[in-house]
């Protein structure tokens, strides 16, 4: 039952013909392989979404530029947003969750392995359907076109009158299909975490990552459904002449906004909570201390989960709701900042008094902390509705949410990549290249997204393919675009590092970071069955107990 015996039983698979190997990957129901498939899929779309962003920034580098047409630009921001949320962020977070949850709870696989595979392939197919629009968007009438209605596809711009052809339908159907995949994945997460924990692992003894993925999974069930429902309604409008959002027949454009944002706001918490999970696992290990305030972290996350369903109309402060409705959403939005802030303090408390090691995962976690702090504070600014009446729908908002998603979530993801890459691949990555990636990306990120706040303050709205010179926006747009190059180079270094290290990196062994959760007791990569015998645990850090038998955690928790 010791960790060494598990290590000895792990074998590298003998090399097989390529066809067999591909077949085994395509038909796999193993949570680890599906996790890796999700992650690879997301990295591919990260690059594609990044190219879309680069096209936009090149168009905006100077005023009245002619790099792309307005039609192309409008497709770029629509596809960039849709891709990044649905085909990068959701898959990569489901991927990490799929990989890690069974390992961390001492299970052999997820609760429903075939549902797991079905969910992945559905998500993948949804993405392909969306991208098919580039060639198939206008049906038979000419060159195809991707959707250009914005990632939130406000009615009535999406009605047949204003969006002729099928580009909007690709948006609707691609997301509908991948939405079912997301619900399937979420069902799996919740069922696995509730039903497959190893003996001794009560809810209060699960790693925080598992807790946070439980909250995220439960949220997904309630979050994706409003979008699915709204998209069904939109499709009924477009195909069967229904009138849900048909303002000429008395329908309401605002109803779409409500339905979309009831999905859209909790969705961003669905995206950020797994990033919190990564950071909550990595910071303790590289501070050599347990997470500060575990019960409060759990409570804060559950609180965020609930309150996040009550803030959605802060995306609608400008649509003319009355002052009482506006005030209600001001207070709920500000209140959701409280548990979020508590989490930042707890991470700080974890680092405090520790022995910090600045390996690449920790560098990204620290970047996360600084940047998520700023993102949260600009969020508080936007929560003050009159301030939002100026800043809303401007580049200030674009800067804010990229600060959260790139500065927060993506940094958390990079930390997770570097931290668990040795476990997944069996090899160590190159630390120097990892550090280089970090610094280049920090420079690029701040060049782009710090300065992006300024045009917003100076009145530049979002989703414009060009802008007037002389409004004070020129210099800032230029700087913002320059930052993109740094980020692009950093991403190339990241991908190169992982690819190279997968084949040529030093062997990692079971536990390169001296970690404390169950995944570090298996070999790297783990065998298909994960654990030779299902472990029995007595505390939140089972490996700490093993490594410190004279001073185990369960005496103090």
């Amino acid at each position, binding site marked *: 039952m010791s960790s060494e015996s598990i290590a000895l039983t792990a074998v590298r698979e003998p090399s097989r013909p390529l066809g067999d190997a591909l077949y085994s990957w395509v038909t796999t129901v193993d949570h680890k392989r599906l996790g890796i498939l999700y992650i690879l899929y997301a990295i591919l779309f990260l690059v594609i979404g990044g190219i879309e962003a680069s096209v936009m920034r090149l168009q905006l580098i100077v005023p009245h530029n002619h790099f792309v047409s307005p039609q192309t630009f409008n497709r770029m921001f629509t596809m960039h947003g849709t891709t990044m949320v649905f085909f990068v962020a959701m898959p990569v977070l489901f991927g990490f969750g799929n990989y890690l949850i069974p390992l961390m709870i001492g299970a052999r696989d997820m609760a429903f392995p075939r549902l797991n595979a079905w969910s992945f392939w559905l998500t993948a197919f949804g993405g392909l359907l969306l991208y098919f629009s580039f060639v198939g968007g206008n049906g038979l009438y000419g060159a195809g076109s991707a959707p250009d209605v914005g990632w939130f596809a406000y009615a009535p711009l999406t009605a047949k009158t204003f969006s002729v052809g099928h580009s909007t339908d690709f948006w609707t159907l691609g997301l509908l299909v991948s939405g079912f995949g997301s619900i399937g994945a979420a069902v799996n997460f919740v069922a696995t975490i509730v039903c497959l924990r190893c003996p001794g692992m009560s809810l209060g003894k699960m790693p925080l990552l598992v807790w946070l993925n439980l909250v995220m999974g439960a949220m997904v069930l309630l979050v994706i459904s409003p979008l699915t429902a709204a998209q069904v309604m939109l499709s009924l409008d477009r195909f069967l002449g229904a009138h849900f959002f048909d303002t000429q027949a008395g329908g309401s454009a605002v109803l779409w906004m409500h339905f979309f944002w009831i999905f859209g706001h909790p969705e961003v918490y669905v995206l950020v909570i797994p990033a919190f999970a990564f950071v909550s696992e990595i910071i303790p290990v590289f501070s050599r201390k347990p997470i500060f305030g*575990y019960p409060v972290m759990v409570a804060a996350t559950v609180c965020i989960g609930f309150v996040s369903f009550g803030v959605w109309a802060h995306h609608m402060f400008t649509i003319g709701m009355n002052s009482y409705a506006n005030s209600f959403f001001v207070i709920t939005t500000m209140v959701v900042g409280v548990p979020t802030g508590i989490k930042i303090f707890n991470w700080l408390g974890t680092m405090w008094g520790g022995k910090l090691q600045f390996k690449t995962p920790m560098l990204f976690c620290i970047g996360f902390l600084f940047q998520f702090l700023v993102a949260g504070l600009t969020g508080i600014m936007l929560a*003050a509705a009159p301030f939002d009446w100026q800043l809303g729908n401007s580049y200030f908002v674009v800067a804010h949410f990229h600060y959260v998603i790139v500065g927060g979530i993506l940094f958390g993801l990079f930390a997770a990549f570097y931290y668990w890459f040795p476990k997944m691949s069996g090899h160590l990555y190159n630390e120097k290249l990892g550090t280089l990636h970090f610094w280049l990306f920090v420079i690029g990120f701040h060049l782009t997204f710090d300065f992006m706040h300024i045009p917003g303050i100076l009145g530049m709205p979002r989703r414009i393919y060009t802008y007037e010179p002389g409004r004070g926006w020129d210099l800032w747009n230029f700087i913002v675009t320059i930052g993109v190059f740094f980020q692009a180079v950093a991403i190339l270094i990241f991908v190169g590092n992982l690819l190279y290290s997968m084949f040529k990196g030093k062997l990692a062994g079971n536990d390169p970071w001296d970690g404390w959760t169950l995944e570090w007791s298996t070999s790297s990569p783990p065998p298909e069955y994960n654990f030779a015998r299902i472990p029995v645990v007595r505390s939140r850090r089972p490996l700490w107990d093993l490594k*410190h038998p004279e001073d185990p955690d369960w005496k103090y928790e």
Partner: protein
Amino acid sequence: MQVRDSSISYTRWAPQVLVCRCWPAAFLLAASLFSVHSCFAFAQASRVPDIFKPASTPAESIQRLSLFVLVITALIFVVVFSLLVYAIRKFRYRAPEDGLEPPQVYGSNQMELAWTVVPVLIVLVLFFATARVIHSIQQAVPPPGTIQVTAIGHQFWWEFRYPGLGVVTANELHVPASNSAQRTPTFVTLLSADTDHSFWVPQLAGKTDLIPNRVNSMWIEPHETGMYVGQCAQYCGTQHAKMLLRIYVESREQFNQWVAAQKQPAHSADAVAAGRRIFEKTACVNCHAISGTIADGRFGPDLTHLMGRETIAAGAATNTHENLKLWIHNPDSIKPGALMPAMNLSNQDLEAVTAYLESLR
């Protein structure tokens, strides 16, 4: 348990520390860049729609609230930032290696209470400050001297009607400056003819959306004369980017003169009769209105006093002879995707129509 990791070396800390020390400096640098730029921009204040240079009552109360929120968030930032920087520097792993793990602290209820209660108090303060401004702006009562305007959003231009004054124009709004002795704010009712738009002139007020099948309203109360720019702030289709706005704030006398001129029917001169005939016989009249003639289309802007505007195509081009000709001949060259079709007139007809339009002062 030994924590052995030979890849960590001291030289690795130098850039780390350097940047940590530099980050406050970096922020100061950015802040000073911004303020220098703002000072420079002051010379052309009306062209830079800076929300922190308000010239109207609602924008001013928003600015006051914004500064209050900024100060509080900046304080929070400074405190947490400093703690983070301190933690990174003080608690980094150092030699000599004693091989021991640091004290394993699981939490502290007092700290949790402290950093829950303080943020809740901050939230309450912010909320009350915010709610006050929301109410003062949204529940303002129009005083007797109010100018009423109805703004109708179209793809991709603005229709402005003054119901009380019988004036119809497009894209460039004229309003009187208001003073506290005799208040003359402008209340704007917001409608849409097609999709969602948003009315945003940052120096005069926050933005409010124009949504079909819904009536919204907003108000401005500018104090200083001048021209203030803005544009549509809700994605409305291909040419959302060039749905620009201008608001000319004038003295009371100038405004009255402007209204009087706008109420006149279109000028009619024999010299441009040929152009007028072409206008009235081609598809122009389907979309455009010119009062005093048979043209009464509502799809496009009212052209009765076209020459009173400094720009055409909702700000996409200045109102010059060449641009006017180009716009009629090939709108896509100025605003690709605009709903004005290319009129396919012969050169001679084009010149005639342009001359006619240029007579519409």
